[in-house]
């Protein structure tokens, strides 16, 4: 998929399209509200919650500050365990490395467990272009695959936007002949995907957390597809974002106390698989080869700059769950596989402002994301930092910059402000007389620039002929000396 999609549509067009999908909006709202409510319930019973969050944040910050050291430790341990470690500086290097492995094994059939970084490097396209049979095995991702590789809409529930009728139709087109209910349909998926697991040559996963001291990689799922992908095929490829690392198993415990609670509001997921290395010679199942591809794809640049804290992210989706913008938009309008607050911070860092410079404005800076991030990433501050950097990149000569510069002058000088509002008040007064509500501007004015965007759906009060400062002056109150 790559990082961006639906780019042929403008943001406003994507919003319009999302607004038409009533089901997706309701489903997303219900799911995210549910995750938030469950998280609140679980953590309300745990007085240690705040301390674990703080510890998790400090831990992630510590790892980033010493990322070269801990990665080196991981690489040494993993190699000692028999795993093969590769490096992916960018998406194309990852693609080449993966295809190399396929070639060496004359492999064609691959099963995948859900991995955001695999979408980021567009590995599915690389594999499919090379003629490989790719099966996503997370039920949500499989549903998307059946729908002509539709884009995910949420980090944890990628197919949130799909209703059961759509899914049923997709299943029927793929051989399903049972009833339209989630239980029977899931059973069908279990059977279909099991065939894929058993016949796959290669399994590809992401990595929730790698453990430096043991050279292990961990994959968490509720479904068990992570276990299947890491146990049945003879070759296991791990795509690991280079920052997805903890020093010790004890550190994994700390992260586990915040991760799943933040994602879906349960203490733990059904399965936490830990692959330490390939099977021993006397074992009969498990991969004979484990390949870990450590991926940079822009992360080392982020590490060097003011957005470093974004690399603490553990991909839990808590920020998406609490964001009022995401809540109403759902995932697709963002046009990025990374949505919500973490998405509008991370995406421009990975693809640049030319392609994603508008995303940091898809936010009210309400701060709810920062409030909820289990590793205390100052998300709303990073969003604002992007806006500053975008403005700086545009330069002072741009049309918008000049408008803002002018506004900045009016808003700084009492005399200019007085003049502007002195003109504005009677104009707005006159305009309101043309509407049907006294003292307000209504939808009649929606063609106007700027103001028009407000009055399309909201009434606007009028600039007062007598502002507060005029009242103060008339009543001889306040500081008349200025």
């Amino acid at each position, binding site marked *: 998929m790559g990082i961006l999609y639906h780019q042929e549509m403008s943001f406003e067009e994507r919003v319009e399209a999302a607004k038409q999908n009533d089901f997706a909006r309701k489903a997303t709202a219900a799911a995210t509200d549910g995750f938030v409510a469950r998280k609140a319930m679980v953590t309300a019973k745990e007085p240690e919650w705040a301390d674990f969050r703080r510890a998790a944040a400090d831990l992630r910050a510590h790892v980033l500050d010493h990322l070269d050291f801990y990665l080196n430790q991981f690489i040494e341990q993993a190699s000692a365990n028999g795993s093969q470690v590769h490096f992916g500086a960018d998406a194309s290097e990852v693609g080449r490395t993966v295809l190399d492995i396929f070639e060496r094994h004359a492999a064609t059939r691959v099963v995948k467990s859900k991995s955001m970084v695999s979408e980021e490097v567009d590995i599915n396209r690389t594999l499919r272009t090379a003629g490989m049979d790719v099966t996503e095995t997370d039920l949500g991702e499989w549903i998307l695959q059946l729908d002509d590789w539709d884009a995910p809409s949420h980090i944890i529930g990628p197919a949130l936007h799909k209703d059961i009728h759509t899914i049923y139709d997709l299943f029927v087109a793929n051989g399903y002949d049972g009833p339209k209910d989630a239980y029977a349909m899931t059973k069908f998926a279990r059977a279909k995907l099991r065939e894929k697991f058993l016949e796959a040559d290669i399994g590809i996963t992401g990595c929730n957390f790698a453990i430096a001291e043991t050279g292990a990689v961990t994959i968490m799922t509720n479904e068990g597809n992570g276990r299947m992908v890491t146990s049945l095929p003879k070759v296991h490829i791990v795509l690991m974002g280079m920052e997805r690392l903890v020093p010790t198993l004890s550190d994994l415990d700390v992260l586990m106390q915040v991760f799943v609670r933040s994602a879906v509001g349960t203490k733990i997921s059904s399965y936490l698989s830990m692959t330490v290395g390939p099977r021993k010679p006397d074992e009969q199942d498990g991969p004979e080869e484990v390949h870990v591809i450590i991926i940079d794809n822009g992360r080392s640049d982020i590490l060097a700059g003011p957005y470093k804290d974004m690399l603490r992210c553990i991909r839990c989706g808590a920020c998406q769950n609490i964001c009022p913008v995401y809540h109403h938009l759902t995932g697709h309008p963002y046009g990025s596989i990374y949505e919500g607050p973490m998405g509008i911070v991370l995406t421009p860092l990975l693809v640049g402002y030319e392609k994603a410079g508008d995303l940091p*404005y898809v936010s009210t*800076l309400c701060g709810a994301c920062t409030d909820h991030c289990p590793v205390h990433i100052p998300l709303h501050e990073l969003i604002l930092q992007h806006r500053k950097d975008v*403005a700086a990149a545009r330069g002072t000569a741009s049309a918008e910059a000049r408008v803002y*510069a002018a506004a900045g002058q009016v*808003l700084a000088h009492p005399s200019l402000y007085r003049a502007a509002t002195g003109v504005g008040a009677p104009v707005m007064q006159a305009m309101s007389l043309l509407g049907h509500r006294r003292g307000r501007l209504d939808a009649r004015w929606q063609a106007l620039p700027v103001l028009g965007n407000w009055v399309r759906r909201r*009434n606007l*009060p009028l*600039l007062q002929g007598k502002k507060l400062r005029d009242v*103060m002056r008339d009543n001889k*109150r306040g500081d008349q000396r200025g």
Partner: protein
Amino acid sequence: MKVHLFSQCMVDMFYPQVGSAAIEVLERLGCEVIVPKNQVCCGQPLINTGYTDAAKAAVKQTIATFEEAEVVVSLSGSCAFAIRDEYQKVLADEPQWLRRAEKVAGRLHEWTAFLVDVLGVTDVGARLPGRLAYHQSCHVTRLLGVREAPLTLLSHVRDLQMVPLQNADRCCGFGGTFAVKKSAVSELIVEDKARAVINSGADILCGADQACLMNIAGMLERMRDQGIYDRDIRVMHIAEVLNSR
């Protein structure tokens, strides 16, 4: 106590009655209130869109207007946050101005927090019969951390019944220029907030930030004009509620 009031440009331009109410409450509590006429705007709309340099003029004007004051009280939570937290980032490259900004930040209070935490008052002697839903503005609640003061003050208003507002601390969708630049999204969020207000059964919507109230009121009124609901819902800044007798 002598108090310098930062009224917020929005209050000055659109809702002077809110400013007057806030002043009366303070005076009744024994404060001498100065409203410096050189204040215009805290510069937040420019800061929050990333035009930090363009914001500097307004930022410096605000600092200059208030830096001689012993006590500065802001009627807006978002302006208070901007002055207290954002100014130092805006002026990071101008050490002299930075010091002046820090001075003002140290003397600045949000209006409800000032009443409760500085004046030590929780009951201002107000009376307002009605059912009130309180919207917890993002800046006041999350960014400034003022969660208790407004509720404490409201709890002592005679004859006033507080009704729960679903998702009270969820953003109203204003977001400064977001409201007009990403209006399609802003509308979705504020519509949801308006529905929550309607469903709460309240006849008064209250908040501590007039920008939020302007936004929600704008949607509530339009929905009433369209016949989506049919009752009076007054939108009042907490200063107006506390000034009711």
